[in-house]
């Protein structure tokens, strides 16, 4: 039991504390900002420490200096991008860099839609992300559940083979995957971009770990009530694995939205490509219209940025748990 606790620690934590995201007590599941209660308790601890030793205030000032300068450096490319997306092309190319445009050029954002296939590429990106998330969450949670809590023949060997795939670099799948999509006539289609990504050995493993950490009692009770495995899974177990599902959703959204190599391989027309491919191909054609490039790349990043800012705790917890990009 101890080792299964170890491997599904976050799952166990989240069950104990109800909502992992808002609970301040546990370490693993909550890498981001402290909730109000938490801040108070930390503050108290801090004060106690200050009481025991006087000189701490000064060193925290130093910490704030280092952290804020570093933090500013981290987001300065983003700030630069925002300013440039609102400038004229001449302002972008002026040598003391423009700190703020003379006249804010909101029209750059509208021009993105007319000067490139931004609309259709945005649609492709949204579509592949939605389809992939729904498909992967459904399939991986079902399979993960079976591998965690059901008995069937060859379970061990199948799991071992599936898990070994996680370690294999994607270049080993790419050529045959391309052939499959080509033979299906799915090049330049949403189905073609999405198909391989719906299946995920990593997602299966992640969900298995979560289901292994859940208690037996509820499942047994449902079984005694005469529920079939489907009903047990969808009504009882899936809601309990909400934290694991969130982690999988977040990781899949990030992968799908940002992925470049696979969509680059299976799309050859600008209309069928997602934003990542569209932006990387744009360099040649619009290489000199920098404000448009900045506005386009800003809009391509924006949905993910907004998602992150709205649910930081879940995003950081999800990525912290899964460990891999």
């Amino acid at each position, binding site marked *: 039991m101890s080792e299964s606790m170890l491997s599904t620690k976050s799952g166990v934590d989240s069950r104990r504390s109800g909502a992992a995201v808002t609970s301040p007590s546990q370490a693993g599941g909550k890498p981001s900002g402290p909730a109000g209660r938490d801040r108070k308790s930390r503050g108290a601890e801090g004060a106690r420490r200050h009481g025991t030793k006087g000189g701490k205030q000064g060193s925290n000032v130093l910490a704030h200096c280092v952290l804020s300068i570093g933090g500013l450096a981290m987001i300065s490319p983003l700030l630069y991008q925002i300013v440039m997306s609102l400038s004229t092309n001449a302002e972008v190319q002026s040598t003391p860099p423009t700190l703020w445009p003379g006249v804010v050029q909101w029209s750059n954002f509208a021009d993105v839609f007319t000067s490139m296939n931004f609309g259709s590429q945005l649609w492709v990106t949204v579509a592949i992300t939605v389809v992939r998330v729904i498909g992967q969450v459904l399939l991986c949670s079902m399979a993960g559940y079976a591998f965690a809590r059901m008995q069937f023949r060859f379970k061990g060997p199948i799991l071992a083979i599936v898990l070994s795939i996680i370690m294999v670099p994607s270049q080993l799948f790419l050529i*045959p995957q391309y052939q499959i999509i080509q033979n299906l006539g799915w090049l330049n289609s949403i189905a073609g971009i999405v198909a391989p990504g719906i299946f995920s050995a990593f997602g299966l493993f992640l969900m298995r770990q979560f289901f292994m950490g859940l208690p037996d009692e509820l499942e047994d009770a449902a079984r005694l009530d005469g529920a079939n*495995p489907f009903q047990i899974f969808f009504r009882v177990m899936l809601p309990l694995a909400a934290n694991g599902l969130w982690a999988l959703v977040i990781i899949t959204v990030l992968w799908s939205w940002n992925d470049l190599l696979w969509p*680059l391989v299976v799309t050859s027309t600008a209309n069928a490509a997602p934003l990542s491919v569209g932006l990387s191909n744009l360099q040649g054609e619009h290489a000199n219209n920098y404000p448009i490039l900045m506005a386009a790349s800003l809009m391509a990043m924006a949905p993910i940025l907004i998602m992150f800012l709205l649910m930081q705790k879940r995003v950081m917890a999800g990525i912290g748990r899964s460990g891999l990009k």
Partner: protein
Amino acid sequence: MKAQTLTPASKSGRAAQATGERRKGKSKSVGWWPWLFVVPTVAGIGVFYLWPIVQTFYYSFTKWGVFGGTKFIGLDNYVRMFADSTIPQSILNTLIYTVVVLLGIPIAVILASLIERPGLRFAALYRTLYFIPYITMPAAVGIVWRLIYNGDFGPINWFLGLFGIQGPYWTSTPGFALLAVATVGLWMSLGFNLIIISAGLREIPRELFEAAEMDGASRVRQFFSITVPLLTPSIFFVTIVTVISGFQLFDLLYVMMGKANLAMPQTQSLVYIFYNQAFLQNDKGYAAAIGILILVIIALLTAFQFRIQKRWVNYV
């Protein structure tokens, strides 16, 4: 890793017990249910991942005709690979890139130990700032960085110009281009390293620091004698992840430099050569051999790291 290999055994023991009980109580209707849950995913993984590995392995021994059709050529692709001077160059490039990105780990350890100080205000804000680059689209930030690195009017060269330094054309000069790309890689990965290391830090019992403080150990001493040794499992983990993803370098390189860049041959990564051979030159047999090489290198590096971990990783 340990947990992963141990769990199936203990789990199956418990589950066997459960099925025994079930047999007694209900019927054997469990029989085909698991397959309903498992088959869609396992079949998909088989078709899109498992069989492709076998095929790629086979392709690495073939030559692809211009009009389709493959011919078995034995080890020719591998012989050609060892004679190809761009291969060692690209391995070196990938290693340099990885080493630069690895520098982000000590930086993350220092930043995490500052952010996780008890009672530090704005800790959540700092985490947000450092994490943002990690989630942004590489294709989008690549375009931004390309402008930042612009040789004529980019802010970096303007800044260097203030000190009378003539900055290079960063993304199109061999040597500088790799450094420019690797710096962006470091910038992007820092947030991830920080999250993992912060989580590791929070697991270190507070009492250790309090005891050390009573014994009069300075903050710096505490950092090197408590924080760093107890963080080694987290550091080991982010090292493994960084090396593996470093050898997957493609997106940033492709976007920041572009296919037509004349500095590309001296800067390209193994994955870029793979992409170029498979999908631009349509030499899929040779590309498959390069794919196998990538697998072998990553496997060797990971195995090596697991071997030497005993010397420096402290498991409590």
